[in-house]
């Protein structure tokens, strides 16, 4: 889970495990993402790079649209790994924002220009050439969500789209005319619903990368203004 470049086999059970925990067994066992994270010996306050992070960084880098003159923002940057990787690979000035103060600190320590923000709300109109987002997407029982920072990093509310929908409704404002959004979508979240919401907001939608794991399929969508 901490090595996004490692083999797929030892990473995928983590994603599936978290999903199952959130949707099925969490209520019975009373286990939170926090105790799961602790059991795995992970940071309990800040989401660490996983297979989804690796896929998002790869999509934004290999798509070839970002260069040294560009400004990008990773929303919900967590540890800052994706933002740092994209900055290093493309030369783009890549900011990282998070609601979580511990995440903003970790990202800054990694050398990312960090800020605390709610989605793209403090960004100037048309200021960004790219916006990256690996959202909290696991559908979660309302009674178990948002009790701590790790839950906030993982939980997408009952639908899994509690953060994705407002993101899609607001991100167009901050995008430069030829800018692009890179959004990670899990099949657990409802791929078709996310694509439909993006289209409603006037975006052309393309799948840049897609990988299947035992419990979910992860895709990175590229959204551009039509």
């Amino acid at each position, binding site marked *: 889970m901490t090595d996004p470049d490692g083999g797929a086999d030892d990473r995928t059970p983590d994603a599936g495990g978290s999903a199952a925990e959130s949707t099925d067994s969490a209520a019975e066992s009373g286990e939170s993402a926090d105790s799961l994270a602790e059991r795995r010996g992970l940071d309990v306050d800040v989401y660490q790079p996983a297979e989804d992070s690796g896929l998002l960084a790869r999509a934004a880098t290999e798509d070839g649209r970002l260069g040294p003159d560009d*400004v990008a923002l990773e929303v919900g940057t967590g540890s800052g790994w994706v933002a740092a990787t994209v900055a290093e690979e493309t030369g783009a000035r890549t*900011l990282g*924002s998070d*609601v979580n*103060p511990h995440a*903003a*600190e970790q990202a*800054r320590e990694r050398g990312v*220009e*960090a*800020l*605390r*923000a*709610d989605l793209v*709300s*403090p*960004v*100037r*109109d048309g*200021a*960004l050439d790219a916006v990256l987002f690996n959202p909290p997407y696991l559908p979660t029982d309302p009674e178990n969500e948002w009790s701590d920072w790790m839950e906030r990093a993982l939980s997408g509310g009952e639908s899994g789209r509690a953060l994705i929908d407002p993101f899609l409704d607001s991100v167009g404002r901050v995008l430069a005319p030829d800018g692009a959004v890179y959004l990670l979508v899990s099949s657990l979240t409802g791929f078709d619903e996310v694509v439909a919401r993006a289209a409603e907001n006037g975006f052309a939608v393309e799948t840049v990368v897609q990988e299947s794991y035992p419990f979910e399929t992860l895709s990175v969508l590229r959204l551009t203004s039509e």
Partner: protein
Amino acid sequence: MKESLMDIIVCPVDKHDLELAVDEEEADEIVSGTLTCTECGETYPIEDGIPNLLPPDMRDEVEA
């Protein structure tokens, strides 16, 4: 934060320009200070190099 971030950020509430007041600066980074909206007057702190641009209601909720 770098001063050049001012070209990118605005007040999260009304999207107007922010005014920067620097308390502490190190090399090319603003370590602490305050960002004030030129329209609504809301203030946003910069602490340990990180501007907190959460809207006021969320800032209070998160920090509670």
